[in-house]
């Protein structure tokens, strides 16, 4: 029993070490790739960002709507329904925006990255690049990683803005909260540090979600089952990593 726990810990440490080295390799190659392969990065920003916009906007609208409803329902008990704007803004900018966007990003863009890279491996496309003296890390992995890191904060910003619109729609237009009070409470309550915490989280989640997706795809077994497993692991591991990281960042910013 103890030996099994030891082996599991050793295996985790080995994988974490390899993942860290892989991350360093990606980051070290990034400046050169940004300078020489900007077109590939823009294409990946489109693939991971623009193509995720619809799901982000729809989810943001309904999450904002729920915040409007719940906020109004809870705060009206204390005659504080005017604070629903501040309540929605805090929730969206500091927590729900970054976290839900990261989870949606892992489900939409992360799985697409992992399965695409896994299939490229299974069909010898990465080996063919190696044989053409083209480094697949530079040509395939780094542009996808950088594209994901750029997309994630932008998606989180869109999520939060649409979420605030949803909260306004429900609280002001449906429940009758005063629009001036809705915006005024938000402006007076929010501090710049609240926004910077949200921005920091989205960047951190973008790095984690992108590197995990690229790692899982690149290290998948070159079979249909291997690609499927890599895709599933991308979502599961990213979700766990994002929630742990969210707790840690929140604790640091408090």
């Amino acid at each position, binding site marked *: 029993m103890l030996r099994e726990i030891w082996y599991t810990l050793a295996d985790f440490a080995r994988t974490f070490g390899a993942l860290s080295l892989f991350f360093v390799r990606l980051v070290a190659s990034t400046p050169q790739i940004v300078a020489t392969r900007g077109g590939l990065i823009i294409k990946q920003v489109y693939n991971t960002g623009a193509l995720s916009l619809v799901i982000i906007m729809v989810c943001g609208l309904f999450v904002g709507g729920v915040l409007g409803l719940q906020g109004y329902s809870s705060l009206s008990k204390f005659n504080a329904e005017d604070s629903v704007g501040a309540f929605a803004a805090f929730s969206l900018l500091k927590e729900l925006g970054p976290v839900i966007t990261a989870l949606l990003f892992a489900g939409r863009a992360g799985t697409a990255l992992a399965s695409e890279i896994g299939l490229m491996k299974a069909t010898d496309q990465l080996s*063919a690049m190696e*044989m053409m003296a083209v480094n697949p890390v530079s040509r395939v992995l780094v542009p996808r990683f950088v594209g994901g890191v750029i997309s994630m904060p932008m998606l989180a910003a869109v999520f939060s803005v649409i979420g605030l619109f949803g909260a306004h729609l429900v609280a002001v237009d449906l429940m009758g909260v005063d629009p001036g009070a809705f915006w005024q409470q938000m402006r007076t309550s929010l501090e710049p540090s609240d926004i910077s915490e949200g921005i920091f989280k989205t960047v951190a989640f973008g790095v984690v979600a992108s590197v995990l997706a690229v790692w899982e795809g690149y290290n998948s077994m070159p079979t249909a089952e291997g690609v499927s497993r890599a895709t599933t692991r991308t979502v599961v591991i990213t979700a766990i990593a994002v929630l742990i990281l969210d707790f840690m960042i929140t604790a640091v910013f408090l």
Partner: protein
Amino acid sequence: MGDSGKQLIEISDLDYSRGHLQIFKGLNLSIERSKITAIMGPSGTGKTTLLQLITRQLRPDAGTILIDGIDIATLNLKGLYKLRCRFGMLFQNGALLTDINVFENVAFPLREHTRLPNRLIQHIVLTKLHAVGLRGAADLMPSQLSGGMARRVALARAMVMDPEILIYDEPFVGLDPISMGVIVRLVRKMNDALGISSILVSHDVQEISTVADCTYLISDGKVAASGSPDELQNTSSAVVRQFMHGMADGPVAFHYAAPNYAEQLLGRDTE
């Protein structure tokens, strides 16, 4: 070139295992410059693995592989990529990049390694596609190609940098007789006109006989026989005769190692 001798590739005492399965046991083999060398053998003998070892996609457990006198095990990544620029490789499944069209697939090595103007790249790519009969398919995506067409595009891509060494992994699989005839003649013509050295892995005894200058037959992790296709056809070795004439009975077992058939059908434990 580091060495202008007759031998381009020299493999000495090569050992390679995958898990518990030993694929090569002291393999010795040499490939001559400007010749077409065929590597043949029954399924599962490690022909593709040998190509991966020669191009250092895999590393051997023991032994040396010299290319032009350079021990490829000693090369760093930069040196390895420099060496690979001299190679062209046709993969078993074509391995075309699926997110770009046929033209861009063939142009890919030129765009990555040269600064040629677009007009010249277009000229070179169309010439290579014309050679494999697919100039008209330049705008198609790889998903729109049949298996045989994809392999012909991959061949055009392998040739586009005019490599010194062309490696073909099962080049005749999935080709119709017309395409096969054209490709066989193309391989021969490129070799003779450009002085390319070619390494061919194939099961196709008939086509290999018409195109290869030298043939190695690999069996049981070693070279079972070597020589010209005619010499192999007339050999007295039982293994070689069984393979070259496609005989079911002989020293090379058709069946993978298995317990007694009758005992297994009767459900008796034979271990």
